[in-house]
Structure formats: structure tokens, C-alpha cells
């Protein structure tokens, strides 16, 4: 709120679309000819953070992908500060190695997985729309694998009905934690069927590379049909639980942020309309918001018979 102009994004920082597309094209064709190894080594020569992943496993939306420079400088990640420019500024010293995720609760085979193990799953790129509850949106090429594949390994018991995500809380590296705007550590949750849905992505990278710290490194989830805050970042624990877990924003303001928080143009946030959205970096909020963020065909059946105005 002081007079700063936010993160200055110089035009040179923005990857020219041709280069970005040609890199993807290069990756795609290399994989198609079975030269995946060559491709990944070629990529890692240009960037140590590059990931190898399959390109065309998931259909691409017609939406234009948001520039990486925008998606990595405009973030809600309150552990690094409440301003959108804070995470990019403050997440630099966040350490993501070593990193483990403990998976427990109502499971037959609890386990602790290292990030290296997660990176061995078959990674694929998924270009998803990201709709923030604040009525702006982006389109992000995430890299990861369906969370269901990981959950299957721990064998949820019949008591498991919900999944709770607990995220990193490192006061020395996350300056925002000293400020109790939310109950730390940040927690989020999904119903088990939502967590098992093939669209729910355990995410390790974006834009061809590992996740930048400010975007939730080294591992987060992405649930594209829900408002952005449901997609917990920098996850350290996954618990399968019997009852609906307490979640950070829902606890902070239950009338404004429901447990479900499915993108829904018919249910307004008490303080603003959700009918339309601003597709960044556009000026005008002239993009019609779609039910379930446009993924209704895949996920609407999860909620059949539910009053979505009540379970917002």
C-alpha cells in the first residue's frame, strides 16, 4: 500500500512466445521419436531446473498460456507476506532440499516419500485455468501426476473420507509466519473422491521446470475446478481422515470461503461478484466465469444432488 509499483516486469524477462512454443514443440517431437533422454539432457543443459515430462497426455485448452513472468511474480502465498509481490521477493531463501512428505492417517500403509521419489512418477504437462477467489485468472502449464496414484500406494482404509494437506511452516525462512493472518501451518482439504479425481494433480513443476519457491515448491496440489486457495502449496503432510478437516481460509472466514469452494459464477463472494473474471494481465473483468472453471463435464457428477449454494 505504500507507493510502490509492484514487481517491475521488464519485457526482457518475459519468455517470447515463439521460444516458449518452440521449446515445447522440440520436447514434443523429441518424445514422439522416442528420444526422451536426449531431450531431457538437452534441456538440462539450458536449465538445471528442467524436468522431463510427457507433452500430449492431456488435451490443451484453447486459452492462451499466461506468461511465466506474471505467474511467478503475482502470488498469494501469505507465509511469505500478504502482498502479491511479497512471495517472489521473500521466497528466495526457502530451502526445498531435503524435502519429504509424510502420508498417514486412515491408511493401511503409511509412508514418508522424498521429493526424489515423487519426481520418478510419470510426469505430464497439464495446462489448467487457474481461477482465484479474488476474480482474476491465469492459465498455467503445470507438471505433475494425478494425486490418486500416490494415494493408491498408501491404501486408504474404509474410514478415510477426506484428505487433509498440511503445508510447510518454517519461521526462519517464511517471514509472513510472524504475522497471524491465518492459523499456521496453512492447511487445506478435499473430499476423498475429489482428491482421487484424475484432474487433481500432485504438482512438481510449471513452465517446463521445477516449481519456483513462490509457486509452492517443491510439491503442491492443483485442483483446477476450485478457487486457487484450495490448491495447497509446499506440502509436508497428507492425512486421510474421517471427518471434514479444518482448513485455513474456511476457519478464518467461514461465510466467505467454503470448504468446497468450487468455482461457481452463480454464488457470489459476499463482497464481490464471481460472475466474471479478469484474465491477467488484461485490464477488464470481461471474461465470463464458468461453473467448475470450465471442468464441469469432468467433475460436476461429484456433486450431483448437492445444493452448491449451500455447500459453497
Amino acid at each position, binding site marked *: 500500500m505504500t507507493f510502490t509499483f*509492484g514487481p517491475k*516486469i521488464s519485457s526482457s524477462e518475459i519468455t517470447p512466445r515463439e521460444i516458449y512454443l518452440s521449446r515445447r514443440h522440440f520436447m514434443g517431437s523429441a518424445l514422439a521419436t522416442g528420444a526422451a533422454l536426449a531431450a531431457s539432457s538437452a534441456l538440462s543443459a539450458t536449465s538445471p531446473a528442467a524436468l522431463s515430462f510427457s507433452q500430449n497426455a492431456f488435451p490443451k485448452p484453447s486459452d492462451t498460456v499466461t506468461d511465466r513472468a506474471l505467474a511467478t511474480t503475482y502470488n498469494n502465498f501469505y507465509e511469505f507476506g500478504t502482498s*502479491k509481490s511479497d512471495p517472489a521477493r521473500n521466497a528466495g531463501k526457502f530451502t526445498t532440499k531435503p524435502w519429504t512428505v509424510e502420508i498417514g492417517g486412515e491408511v493401511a500403509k503409511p509412508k514418508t516419500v522424498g521429493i526424489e521419489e515423487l519426481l520418478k512418477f510419470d510426469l505430464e504437462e497439464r495446462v489448467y485455468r487457474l481461477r482465484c477467489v479474488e476474480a482474476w485468472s491465469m492459465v498455467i502449464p503445470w507438471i505433475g501426476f494425478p494425486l490418486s496414484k500416490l494415494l493408491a500406494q498408501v491404501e486408504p482404509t474404509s474410514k478415510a473420507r477426506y484428505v487433509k494437506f498440511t503445508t510447510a511452516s518454517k519461521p526462519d525462512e517464511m517471514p509472513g509466519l510472524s504475522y497471524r*493472518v*491465518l492459523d499456521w501451518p496453512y492447511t487445506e482439504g478435499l473430499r476423498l473422491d475429489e482428491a482421487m479425481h484424475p484432474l487433481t494433480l500432485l504438482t512438481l513443476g510449471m513452465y517446463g521446470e521445477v516449481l519456483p519457491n513462490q509457486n509452492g515448491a517443491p510439491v503442491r496440489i492443483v485442483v483446477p475446478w476450485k478457487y486457487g486457495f484450495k490448491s495447497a502449496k509446499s506440502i509436508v503432510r497428507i492425512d486421510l481422515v474421517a471427518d471434514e478437516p479444518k482448513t485455513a481460509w474456511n476457519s*478464518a472466514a467461514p461465510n466467505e470461503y467454503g470448504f468446497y469452494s468450487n468455482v461457481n459464477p452463480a454464488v*457470489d463472494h459476499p*463482497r464481490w461478484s464471481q460472475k466474471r473474471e479478469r484474465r491477467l494481465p488484461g*485490464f477488464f473483468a*470481461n471474461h465470463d466465469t464458468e461453473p467448475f472453471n470450465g471442468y464441469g463435464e469432468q467433475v460436476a457428477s461429484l456433486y450431483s444432488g448437492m445444493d452448491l449454494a449451500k455447500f459453497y
Partner: protein
Amino acid sequence: MSTTTSNSFFKPPLSFIGVIKPLLFCFLLLPSLLISYAIFFDPLMLGANPAEAILHHTGDWVIYSLLLTLAVTPVRRVTKWNDAIKLRRMLGLFSFYYVCLHFLAYLGFDRLFDLSDMAREIAKRPFILVGFLAFLLMIPLAVTSTRGWVLRIGGKAWAKLHKLIYPIAVLGIIHYWWLVKRDIFWPLLLGLVLAALLVYRLFLFLRSAPRQRGVRASS
């Protein structure tokens, strides 16, 4: 904006107020110039969400200039720098300038210049209603800010009308407070500054002679 430096050749042309006023004018104009530059030449200068940045910056400067306007009297009393009064109209008009930009940005970027859509939103959202009310109340103050209007309605009535700045400033802070999601630091800080400026006036009022108080209350 008329300057208050004398046109007479017989007075020194560079009084303190004669220097400070144009400087302050340029300083307060600068944010809007930067925003205009960004809109036309480099929107990403404002970050990934330029429209939101414009809404926030213009809103901030409404409150900053309102608080500066309200600071004139305390500064004058405490420092005995009487020329400070010559800044007050300019400061007040800057808050009106920024509230117009703020309103236009909202009407355009958020409501796509659809007035009926805007009316529906104002009716539904208390925080927008409060901000809109503050904007409406600022219009008569801006209109009657000229010397001609002071004479037309009389000094006493004019002064009374312009006491509207108190509820306007309070509404402005409430608008800001109700907008933020969780982090109330800035609305709280600015609200405390406003509270201090208002308490100072209460202090002046209570210190004034009881008779004078009675006169004020009945006027």
C-alpha cells in the same frame, strides 16, 4: 490550479509557501502521471494485475490526500505556520481528483462501463456502497471549493458544509477496511492517523470557551 503567490512585483516572489505549493502539486500529480504512462506504454510496470494496481493506487492517494487535507489545521496550530491554509484547497481537490480516477477505474475495468450493473453491485456490497457514498459526498465539496462559492453561500455555511470531510474520511477508511481479506495493517494504520487528526479537533473543541462552544452548536 491558481497559485496563491502574489502577482505583485513589490513582494518577494519566492515565499516559502510559493515554493512548497508547486512542489507539493507536482508530487501529488506524479502518481497519476506514472499510472497514465503505465496504461499507455508499459502496463506490466504495474505488475501482473494492472487494473487492480490502478484501483489500489488511486484509492490509496484519495486517503493520503484526505489525511493531508485534515492535517492542515493541526500543522497550522502547532507550528504557527499560517500559510499552510493556502495548501488546503489544493489538497482537497487532489483527493477529489484521485477519487474520480478511482471511480472511473472501477466503473470501467470492473463494471465494463455498465451503469446498471454498477448500481446492482453498489446495492449488494456494503464496502462499495460506503466508498460510493464518500465519492458522492465529495462532489459538493469540490464544486464549492472556489472563492466565488464561498462568497455565494457565505463563509459560515460554507465552513459547515465542508465539515463533510470528516464523515467522508471515515467512510473512506471503512471502505478500505472492509475491502481487505485478512491483513488489516494498512487500513488500521491510516485509520489511526485519521483518529489522531479527529481527536485533535475534539481537543480544540473542548478547550474552546464554553460560550463559544454553545455558539458553535447552535449555529
